[in-house]
């Protein structure tokens, strides 16, 4: 195929991508080195001060910590839970097509809808509190979204509610590629259900699980919409994430500083992606191009 033709075919995508993705990212690297409010001219060069400032700001490092907690909870709780349900849907249970449809439904609802409805459910004397009271658990109600010690976990629950379906269908697609005969052979040889799971299913599902974990980590590093709508990162920053922190700085017109924060988030994502690709995904992602 002649060169000009290749250029013609690539041009629309490359132009669109350069203008709205690459150029802004490159620009924010530049802005991150300035003290800039977004309007006046870009002349107050401050070097790496913005980055130093971010890492010495406890509000930011707390936000980073919240991201890490959410990543850990997602990997330790959400993915095993999604795997359990995927296995359930992969068994001979009746109505599993309907169940899959319904379990996945929250994923197609917007973050805003999810956040607004859950905020209503979790408000003091809201639905959850009323339900707990009516079954005699009234003493255990919490300020789900107003208690700084509780809010992050309540938020994690809401996040899981919305996203577990995605991991579930991913893992289900993986499970359906595990040949049924292998499990049957194992059980004829006397393997218990657990042994069959541990030594047959799990290893074969490894690639899918690693991809699921990877997407979960990257997603959790960049969480914004659902957090912002549900809690705005509050109360007193107890449920902030790096991205809500970034948006706070943006709203204060600290454009130079906010650019530095977004560069930090980019870099973290990139480093995580590269490390993960290097050590865990190597074999799994060859050819799928999920990681650059």
């Amino acid at each position, binding site marked *: 195929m002649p060169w000009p033709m*290749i250029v013609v*075919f690539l041009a629309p995508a490359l132009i669109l991508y350069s203008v709205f993705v690459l150029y802004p990212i490159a620009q924010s690297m530049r802005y991150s080195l300035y003290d800039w409010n977004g309007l006046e001219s870009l002349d107050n060069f401050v070097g790496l001060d913005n980055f130093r400032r971010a890492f010495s700001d406890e509000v930011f490092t707390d936000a980073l910590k919240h991201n890490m907690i959410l990543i850990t909870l997602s990997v330790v709780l959400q993915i095993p839970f999604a795997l359990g349900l995927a296995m359930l849907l992969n068994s001979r249970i009746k109505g599993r*097509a309907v169940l899959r449809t319904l379990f996945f439904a929250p994923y197609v609802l*917007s973050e805003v809808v999810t956040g607004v409805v859950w905020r209503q459910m979790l408000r003091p004397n809201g639905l959850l509190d009323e339900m707990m009271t009516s079954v005699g658990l009234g003493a255990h109600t919490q300020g789900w979204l107003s208690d700084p010690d509780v809010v992050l976990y309540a938020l994690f629950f809401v996040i899981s509610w919305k996203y577990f379906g995605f991991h579930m*269908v991913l893992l289900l697609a993986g499970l359906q590629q595990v040949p049924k005969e292998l499990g049957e052979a194992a059980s004829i040889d006397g393997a218990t259900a657990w042994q069959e799971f541990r030594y047959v299913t799990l290893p074969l599902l490894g690639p899918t699980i690693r991809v699921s974990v990877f997407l979960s980590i990257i997603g959790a590093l960049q969480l914004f919409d659902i957090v912002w709508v549900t809690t705005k990162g509050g109360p007193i920053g107890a449920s902030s994430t790096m991205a809500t922190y970034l948006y706070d700085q943006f709203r204060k017109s600290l454009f130079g500083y906010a650019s530095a924060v977004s560069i930090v988030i980019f870099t973290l994502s990139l480093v995580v992606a590269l490390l993960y690709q290097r050590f865990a995904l190597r074999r799994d992602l060859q050819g799928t191009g999920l990681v650059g």
Partner: protein
Amino acid sequence: MAELELHDAPLETDEPIPTTRRRWRIDRLALYVVAMFVLGIIVLPISFSVLGGFRSNKQLVESPVGLPDPWVFENYTSILSSWSFWRQVWNSTFIALLAAFVVLPAASMAAFVISRYSFRGRELVYGLFTLGLLFPAAVAILPLFITLRQAGLLSNPLGVALPQAAFGLPIAIVIMRPFFRAIPQEIQDAAAIDGCGPMRFYWSIMLPLSRPVLSTIAVITIVGSWNSFLLPLLVLIDPNEHTVPIGVNNISSQYSTDFARVLAYTTLSMVPALIFYAIAERQIIGGLTAGAVRE
């Protein structure tokens, strides 16, 4: 690969020993209990929202559990007869279609040459696009905002649709590439012998053969665009341009004590997404799992 087979497996008739069968039945009961429990948690917020819209605020405070008594229709009817709600539905739809309309040709043309021809720098171009998977619009929002301001695209539907299309390119290309690759080389050779150039081959053979993957990309783009919040919030300044998620967010802070109205508004905004999901479930799930699970 992406098609999940979910037809209920036929029950085996020759299942051997009764004790196994009884245990299987108990296990199965446990499975149903778990499934129903999860189902309850999934459905609860949605039904709370739907029913909540039919309550008065007084009912919501006094008895949020159970069916509304009496049913109040005023929340829904007042929203449905308001001009601004329909305006938002139209804005969201228009922007979503625009984004899909831009991303489909751009991504399919790029994926076409990347997957069917070898040229220098091909892997570099592909790598560049996949890098975009790591950078969602929410994190790039600040430089993006500045770029849009420089380009004069604030307060313009294009200022939302074009970035959405651009940020949608990576996943679209990643999903399309293996699909395009799988189309046999013989077809291309035969077409070439018959004097069909790359342009015609792309237009008259590749695209018609790729309808499933194109509809998947269209659906994913539309859902993503329909649901997006931060970008339209920053770009669309004039209330007449607001999209549905902005409307939901506004109403929930504006009428923060009018819970019933907020829930009714939220419910109505869910309806298009859920209908769309019901129609296009296969494309949505297939598309989302396609990139991540290998054949």
